[in-house]
């Protein structure tokens, strides 16, 4: 030991060293824990607290008698957590087997929507409970795969009106950038067609949020009660004007056909039934829809995705003769008592135009011509009425424009006029033959079946109609009396004389009740029906069958249009469905 520097002094050096070091440590800890506490406390709260959005339940949709048409049921979405998904290839392949979905779809969504290692990516939605049970059984072989409840649409009434209902889907890139969906987020589910799209903002509701505690891996541990959460505001409910019973009946009657039916309430334009066939099961879109199913639907030659009632135009056939009749009478160009002889054909220059009845109708006046749907009579009369009047009255009855129904992608149809023909064929170069075609609802005239139903309503009400609509009431499910009724939009044709209406009504009455009426099969017995059949020639196959009309004859309550593609004669195919409809309404005491 060094005698010059005693152990006593050496121990003091050690003690001083320890004192200094421990004071430095304590000062540092005091600084971090006492002075900087607020900063670090806030940071620790930010670490553990995460706001999450709460999806509101989407509004329920009911029929006019409160029967639920579109409801919500719990379904499940499947998510992948990148951080825990060690081998996406094998896990997705296995998951694809379990859910019966090609694994590429998972890969596509996973790649597209991946945000961070701890943020879950939705790779599949609308998985039902059975599939979920299979998933749960094999949980250990699916590391990084989790699921969550997410309601899906459910159609409990048996009504399968996919075109009317529309469907839901994830908002796309275009939608996200549009003004209309400014307050929507990626991954949100929105209405893509039908009333789901038209009434999206009403059905959607408002998102809520709450604060949850998460762990270091981003897993939710619990809800933090102390922090005020904002509950979601449920979407509003719709009550449609649809009568589920009638809709079911018509869907069933027309199930094997191509075509459809539109039934309107004469008193306000409410759509009581709207059928378009063929359709598809709306549940298809409430389940994980595969690319294969989607391709099958889009490539089907029968075009099941297409709403034939609203979205497509076609020739109305003889149902359109009424326009010529009204125009001629109103303009005093037709004398209703004047008789025309029908030998079964009509010669114009070197061309021969056939009447549908090869033997001819003999001598017919206006009323008889409507009753028997004589072409020759109208070939003669249209030449008196002329193209300009025909176009004018077509427009006056709102052909060539959208009815304004609250459904998507409505087609406006097209009404040709002189300018159109001049442009198309050159001024003066088109023949009267074109005009003859138009009067019997052939040629370049295009209408939608819904327009024909709306037309039937205008005729039934003698010019006082309404724009058709499917929604009746918007209801707040929270407060029962908070209801907003749909405002009926009048659709009026002014100035037609009463005697003109009388004649047209009589003619349409004879169609069902006259000896030679073309739609005797529409007679339901108890009440009187008026109507007009049509058989539109179709260069691609069988004729299209039409039947429009209204009932009861004296005090019209419903106006209707039935349309069957390739169905043949309107009287033979379409009229019996009308009778079935009226019989049903009578039996149910609804008319």
């Amino acid at each position, binding site marked *: 030991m*060094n005698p010059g*520097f005693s152990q006593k002094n050496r121990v003091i050096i050690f003690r001083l060293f320890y004192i200094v070091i421990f004071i430095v440590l304590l000062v*540092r800890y005091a600084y971090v824990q006492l002075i900087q506490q607020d900063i670090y*406390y806030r940071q620790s709260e930010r670490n553990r607290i995460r706001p999450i959005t709460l999806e509101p339940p989407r509004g329920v949709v009911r029929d006019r008698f409160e029967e639920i048409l579109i409801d919500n049921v719990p379904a499940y979405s499947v998510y992948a957590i990148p951080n825990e998904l060690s081998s996406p290839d094998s896990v997705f392949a296995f998951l694809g087997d379990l859910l019966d979905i090609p694994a590429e779809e998972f890969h596509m969504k996973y790649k597209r929507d991946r945000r961070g290692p701890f943020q879950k990516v939705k790779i599949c939605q609308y998985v039902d409970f059975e599939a979920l049970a299979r998933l749960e059984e094999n949980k250990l072989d699916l590391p990084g795969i989790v699921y969550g409840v997410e309601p899906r649409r459910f159609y409990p009434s048996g009504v399968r009106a996919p075109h009317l209902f529309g469907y839901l889907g994830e908002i796309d890139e275009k939608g996200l950038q549009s003004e209309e969906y400014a307050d929507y987020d990626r991954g949100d589910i929105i209405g893509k067609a039908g009333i789901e799209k038209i009434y999206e903002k009403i059905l959607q509701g408002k998102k809520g949020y709450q604060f949850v505690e998460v762990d270091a891996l981003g897993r939710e541990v619990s809800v933090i009660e102390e922090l005020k959460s904002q509950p979601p505001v449920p979407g509003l409910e719709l009550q449609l004007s649809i009568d589920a019973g009638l809709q079911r009946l018509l869907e069933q009657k027309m199930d094997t056909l191509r075509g459809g039916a539109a039934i309107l309430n004469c008193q306000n334009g409410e759509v009581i039934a709207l059928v378009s066939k063929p359709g598809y099961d709306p549940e298809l879109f409430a389940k994980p829809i595969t690319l294969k199913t989607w391709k099958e639907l889009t490539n089907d030659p029968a075009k099941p995705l297409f709403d034939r009632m609203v979205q497509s135009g076609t020739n109305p056939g003889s149902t359109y003769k009424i326009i010529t009749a009204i125009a001629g009478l109103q303009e005093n160009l037709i004398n209703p008592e004047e008789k025309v002889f029908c030998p079964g054909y009509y010669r114009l220059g070197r061309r021969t135009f056939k009447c549908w009845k090869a033997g001819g109708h003999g001598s017919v006046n206006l009323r008889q011509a409507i009753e028997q749907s004589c072409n020759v009579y109208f070939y003669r009369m249209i030449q008196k009425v002329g193209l300009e009047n025909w176009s004018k009255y077509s427009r006056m009855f709102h052909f060539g424009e959208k009815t304004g129904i609250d459904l998507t992608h409505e087609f406006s149809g097209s009404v040709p006029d002189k300018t159109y023909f001049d442009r198309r064929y050159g001024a003066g170069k088109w023949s009267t033959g074109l005009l003859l075609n138009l009067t019997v609802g052939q040629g370049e005239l295009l209408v939608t079946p819904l327009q024909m139903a709306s037309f039937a309503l205008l005729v039934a009400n003698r010019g006082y109609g309404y724009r058709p609509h499917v929604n009746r009431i918007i209801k707040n499910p929270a407060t029962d009396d908070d209801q907003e009724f749909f405002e009926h939009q009048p659709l009026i044709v002014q100035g037609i004389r009463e005697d003109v209406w009388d004649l047209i009504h009589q003619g349409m009455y004879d169609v069902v009740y006259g000896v030679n009426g073309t739609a005797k099969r529409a007679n339901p017995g108890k009440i009187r029906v008026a109507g007009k059949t049509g058989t539109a020639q179709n260069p691609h196959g069988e004729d299209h069958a039409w039947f429009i009309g209204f009932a009861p004859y004296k005090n019209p309550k419903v106006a209707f249009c039935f349309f069957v593609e390739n169905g043949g004669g309107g009287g033979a195919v379409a009229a019996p469905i009308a009778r079935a409809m009226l019989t049903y309404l009578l039996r149910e005491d609804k008319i």
Partner: protein
Amino acid sequence: MLWDKDDLKKADIVLLIAFSGLLVIGLLIIYSATHGENLDINQNFSKQAVWILIGWLLLALVTMLPFKVYHEMAFPAYIFSILLLIAVLFWGSGAGVKRWFAFGPFRFQPAEIAKIATLLFLAKYAADSKRNFKSFRDIAVAFAIVGLPTLLIMKQPDLGTALVFVAMVLPILFWAGLSLFTVFLLIAPIITLASAFTFFSFFIAMVFIIGVMVVSGRGPKVIIPNFILNIGVGIVTPILWNQLHNYQKSRILTFIGLEQDPRGLGYQVLQSKVAIGSGGMWGKGWMEGTQTQLRFLPEQHTDFIFSVLGEEFGFLGVLIVLVLFFLLLWRALNIAQSSKNVFASLVVIGASTIIAFHVIVNTGMTVGIMPVTGLPLPFLSYGGSSLLTSTLLVGLILNAGRRRFQYL
């Protein structure tokens, strides 16, 4: 004689209480940090409890053995531990890092044995009455004794543990008679090295070093060569540094805590500071720390156990534990001072230095004033080998205290 009736009276009761208090607090925090549904770690509490029981048996044994046993064991134990350190480099377990031998579920780190063996052997060497720590030769041999295991451990690589060996040399030599000035001369090049990267800091360091040498009153024969040595270190260091690859530089900077990778060491320290800082004065309560319970805090039952304490028991908890450590070290100095046995006295200095180094580096690391080196906190951190080594060191201190009036 192994057992003495007065043993209990002679044992340093304050030191024993500080030691026991730290173990209890450690168990409490380990429970908080590892309870839960995770089966891998929720057994850690009971495992640690078993280790503590084994530790107490070991403590009794180490305290009871006559001190001369350690004196005799020192050299063979040193040689044995060096052989083990070489063996672990060839046959050790672990991918890339070879630190331990595995026997079934048990892992055994030769470095822990080497710590104690080197301590004993260095103390034995320094305690020899023939030593003169004014001679360059004796100082060099002392450094060589520590340098050999240090280099072998750096090869594993385990820089944190290697630094523990370096840390014990100067205190032991100083206690054995090395002059304060020589200690300064030995530390000076390290100061120079750290300051050599900017001219300004280098200039300040040189002024300081020359100042101390002049004030000490030594002649130019001592001052000039040491001055040249320091200048030389200052010039060579930046040149060597610039020849390193970027990844090597980055590794060194990260190691000494100057460069932090976002989700690596820097992330750990940030979460640790958040845990400690958010604890405030009184803490969030036992098992109530959000950073701990939600696992934002990494390595929370091992290296960062002190952060759990800081979060759940606040500054008060930190103060209590630091005071307990301080008491333990303070009492160890009393024993070293009063021991009549030079070897035992040196062992106590070395043992308390090892404990102190761990405490300072670990508690400094969790608040970001020390680099992240992976050194556990003695008595509190989960882990059998760390606990047994620390307990053994305490046993040596207690033993020396019990026999402080014995010369041999």
